[in-house]
């Protein structure tokens, strides 16, 4: 039976992964992600799985690649500087089409930066992700409940497409406590898929499992283009809040989107028609969400805790550069709902600066 609890985002995510059937975690401590590793260091053994605290983040990815090749549902989590070390493994997971669920609990800034909240990893996670045409599906929870729900869904997506899926969250969603409904435990059969490495049957002794695509690059390119196109067509997820009549539409994800929801309420209370497109998938980018925007819309306001406003190019592409785009980029402090409303009023008045 589903269970109610009050949990920290990171711990709820870890518990949700176990309930989705994950039995292998390999990772390294880094703030603000460490609770996942600490929680699994005891909880994983209660469900008879394996948890390895690795020599570095890079190792964690290669270990889980081996575990996934054996049919396990696998997890590794990190943040900023640690997530940077995931990229070699991410490219291998993509290139060899091995499912995995990875998590980036975003922290502040380039280099070591800071351990506080920020949203500066969008480009790295959504458009980076390893050498050689790698592409991961990216999910962006905005609450502890959504961490639980999306991590469950992440395993199904990873296996459906044989591709890594990344849950991109942030220091606040990861660290805060909220009420949550935990799903029931699912059993995962390690022999479920035919691509999994297992003991060979007598008539399979001539089989060659080399782990490589096993096709020419022309065929591989066609296969991957079709796979990525199918993801783009079928896996866009978003939440639209009062978009259809809005004069200004916010675009945000994660912690920033929660502030925008509050801003929509505040704005509407004073007669300002503000709406919100909340990204639930950052890749594929939910272009379909933008169809609801009315012809009278004065502009889009991207709200993001970053320096560059990294979502902006994707918003411009999704609107085919047909709308003015404005920004509120608060970097290291959580955006303020009143400031969101003020900027929306400036946009309507024609006094705001485009980005």
């Amino acid at each position, binding site marked *: 039976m589903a269970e109610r609890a009050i949990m920290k985002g990171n711990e709820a995510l870890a518990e949700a992964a176990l309930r989705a059937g994950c039995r292998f975690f390999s990772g390294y401590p880094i703030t603000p992600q460490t609770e996942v590793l600490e929680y699994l260091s005891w909880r994983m053994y209660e469900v008879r799985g394996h948890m390895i605290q690795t020599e570095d983040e890079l190792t964690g990815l290669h270990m889980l690649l*081996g575990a996934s090749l054996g049919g396990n549902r696998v997890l590794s989590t990190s943040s900023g500087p640690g997530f940077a070390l995931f990229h070699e493994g991410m490219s291998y997971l993509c290139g060899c089409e091995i499912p995995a669920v990875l998590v980036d609990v975003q922290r502040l800034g380039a280099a070591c930066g800071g351990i506080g909240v920020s949203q500066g990893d969008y480009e790295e996670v959504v458009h980076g992700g390893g050498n050689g045409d790698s592409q991961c599906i990216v999910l962006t929870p905005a609450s502890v409940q959504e961490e639980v729900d999306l991590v469950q869904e992440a395993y199904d997506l990873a296996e459906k497409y044989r591709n890594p899926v990344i849950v991109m969250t942030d220091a606040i969603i990861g660290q805060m406590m909220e009420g949550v409904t935990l799903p029931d435990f699912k059993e995962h059969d390690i022999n479920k898929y035919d691509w999994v490495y297992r003991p060979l049957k007598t008539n399979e002794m001539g089989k*060659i499992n080399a782990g490589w695509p096993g096709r020419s690059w022309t065929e591989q390119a066609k296969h991957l283009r079709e796979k990525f196109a199918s993801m783009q067509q079928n896996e866009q997820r978003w939440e639209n809040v009062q978009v259809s009549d809005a004069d200004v539409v916010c675009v945000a994800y994660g912690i920033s989107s929660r502030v925008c929801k509050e801003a929509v309420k505040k704005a509407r209370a004073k007669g300002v028609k503000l709406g919100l497109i909340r990204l639930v998938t950052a890749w594929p980018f939910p272009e379909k969400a933008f169809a609801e925007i009315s012809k009278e819309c004065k502009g889009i306001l991207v709200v993001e805790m970053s320096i560059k406003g990294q979502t902006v190019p994707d918003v411009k592409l999704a609107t085919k550069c047909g709308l003015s785009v404005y920004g509120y980029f608060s970097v290291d402090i959580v955006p303020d709902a009143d400031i969101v409303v003020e900027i929306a009023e400036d946009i309507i008045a024609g006094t705001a600066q485009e980005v």
Partner: protein
Amino acid sequence: MAAKTFNIPTLMQGLPPHTACQGCGHGIAGRIIYEVIEEMGMSSNCVAFHDLACGANMLFAQKGNGFSGAHGRAIPTATGFKRTRPDMLVFSYAGDGATYSIGMQHTIHTALRNENITAIVVNNTNFGMTGGQMSPATLIGQKTTSSPKGRTAELNGNPIDITEVYSGMKIAYLARGSVDSVANINKTKAYIRKAFEKQMAGCGFSFVEIMAPCPTNWGMTALGSIKRMQDEVLKLYPVGEYIDGGAK
């Protein structure tokens, strides 16, 4: 004495030959590994995790389960697989560059965890696939394309001896073999068997280093490179069993 018939192991039959250079040690190393696997009755129940570069030559010379992960990462990839399927025989197969340079952290930490897998390292004292650069195992005085005047301790540091690194560590098994002579090939095969048996008995981490020639990058004939092994390489890196531990 009855004549012994030479048979190619089942998992290597009916395939194009491996793509290693003439006189390379990888062909012998691969063959004796698969002979042991067949003799143990594990042909249908094993996975080889190859490194890239020359270590991946064997990937295309074998049937069954093989995987070539990123350079230097064969050991952790094997670790994750073995934890998932503990009843299978799981080994990594890599060179000295992968194991003592880019993947050195795994070489240390897998031994510290005494992980129940087998690592096989073919040490030819240079980076073969990229054209013969200096590796951590390159001998003092050895000329490579990145130590053209010969390795010096002052400029490049001293060569790594894995038996010194692992000295005193609580792992299941450590041995060093060689493919320079029939006697050493037979010894090496026995080491591999022991390493695999320890893994299947759950004793922990087993590691077999196999010294091999690289005539192409040493700039020698096949026979010349065997002579260099016997005159120089095996004097610095002697064959033998170094750690023979019990149950985990």
